[in-house]
């Protein structure tokens, strides 16, 4: 059901773990809805220099975490805030329709981590406007069912 790239990121995920003394940590989802992702980041000069994840979730969630952390390392905060789940999916070479929402998790968890960093440092980012890390966590399950 998954393409080779997804399977590869799933079987050999990059950036697994937690950064000690991270500059920002965000979690999204909950085990109750079957998926929970934690992302921690290191920031230097508004640039993300390291990112790690821990994910409770399906293959697609794990692969999305892996590729998303790969993607944001080296990005500026502003660039990272613009990362969409669509880009994550593209980078993975596609996900099955029912699994699209799993990639939303990663993009939310990244935003949450940056939000945490912004809170700690008192910085403001345009991309965070209107973002609420505690918004209804079931959101990502509300996508229409496959036809």
């Amino acid at each position, binding site marked *: 059901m*998954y393409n080779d790239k997804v*399977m590869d990121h*799933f*079987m050999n*995920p990059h950036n*697994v773990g937690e950064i000690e003394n991270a500059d920002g940590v965000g*979690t999204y989802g*909950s*085990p*109750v*809805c*079957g*998926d*929970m*992702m*934690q992302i921690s980041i290191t920031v230097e000069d508004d640039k993300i220099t390291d990112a790690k*994840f*821990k*994910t*409770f*979730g*399906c*293959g*697609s*969630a*794990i692969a999305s975490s892996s590729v998303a952390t790969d993607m944001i390392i080296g990005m500026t905060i502003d660039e990272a805030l613009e990362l969409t789940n669509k880009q994550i999916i593209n980078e993975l070479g596609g996900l099955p329709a*029912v699994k699209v929402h*799993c990639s939303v998790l990663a993009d939310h968890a990244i935003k949450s981590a940056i939000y945490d960093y912004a809170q700690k440092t008192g910085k403001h980012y345009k991309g965070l406007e209107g973002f609420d890390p505690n918004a209804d966590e079931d959101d990502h*399950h509300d996508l229409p*069912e*496959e036809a």
Partner: protein
Amino acid sequence: MRQVYLDYSATTPVKQEVVDAMLPYFTELYGNPSSLYSIAAESKEALAGARKQVAELIGAEEKEIFFTSCGTEADNWAVMGAADALRKKGNHIITTKIEHHAMLHSCEFLEKRGYDVTYLDVDSEGRVNPADLEAAITDKTILISIMFVNNEVGTVEPIKELAAIAKAHKILFHTDAVQALGNVPIDVKELGIDLMSMSAHKIYGPKGIGALYIRKGVKISNYLHGGAQENKKRAGTENLAGIVGFGKAAELARTNLTEHIKHTSSLRDYLIQQVQENIDNVYVNGSMEHRHPGNANLTFEFIEGEAMLLYLDMNGIAVSTGSACSSASLTPSHVLSALGIPVERIHGTLRFTVGDMTTKEDIDYVVSTLKNVVNKLREISSVSSE
């Protein structure tokens, strides 16, 4: 790489003897059983033989067996046929929360068309309480349908008691025995069953062939209308080779039953014991006393089922999950929910079912692989015991 199939409740390989029995009916004895010439007479005889083999497996008479295209059709026929035939008598159906979707979705369809359905609760082991059934009956109740063995957790229901309650109230009693067939002894007469669904592909027969047992004297409406096949009760040119295969599989299931139960339950018990010895934070779901002999439904805390399933698959091991992320449907298993299992645990649940081809070496390989997989996923996981 070693290949270990531990999903016999999803489907089984067809045994070679079964395929061999089927083969002539494709290219040589292909006559339409409804025709009158000699080659068709051989087809007719083959149908009669298979009907006998299936009847013998469940203690029924031959003319009480009606072949269908699958267990799902048998379930649909039973509930739709009873609902239609007994509409004047009432519009209330009783079933359970842990039925297969073939039953649940049929009931939902009927609910939208003026029928009332009561979905009985089950206890934490997945068993229906007969007192609950008794209490749910109204004077409008026309059908009680309770599965014989649950497909996810393997729980065996107290069918004899439940059927007796139905009988006392003169209400038709149907049971979905798709998972029970060939795995627990079944005598429809002794159990007092009116209608029973079966499927060949769970007992080493081919996919796409099932049967409905209809007790002599029980009248339900037809569901597939057309030709006079199946004693005018189920139309459609018979799946000749499939029926022959089902018959052969039923015969093998009957003659091997004791051995099959012994073999699968001992390997299943060994699997559970080994998993518990080697892996922490594991739960066994369902009843140990009233259980499908091959079923081990296990929850591995802190990790998610689909991820485990895929890692196991990469190691040649086939198991299934009833968890949110396991299939096209992302809702957590309605069965595990009905047992009261917390949602976060449901997500970490796998179903292992062992079968006739499983060996002890298979189990050893599965346990050692599983240990690594669980460890690895727990490392990745954002949830933990701490």
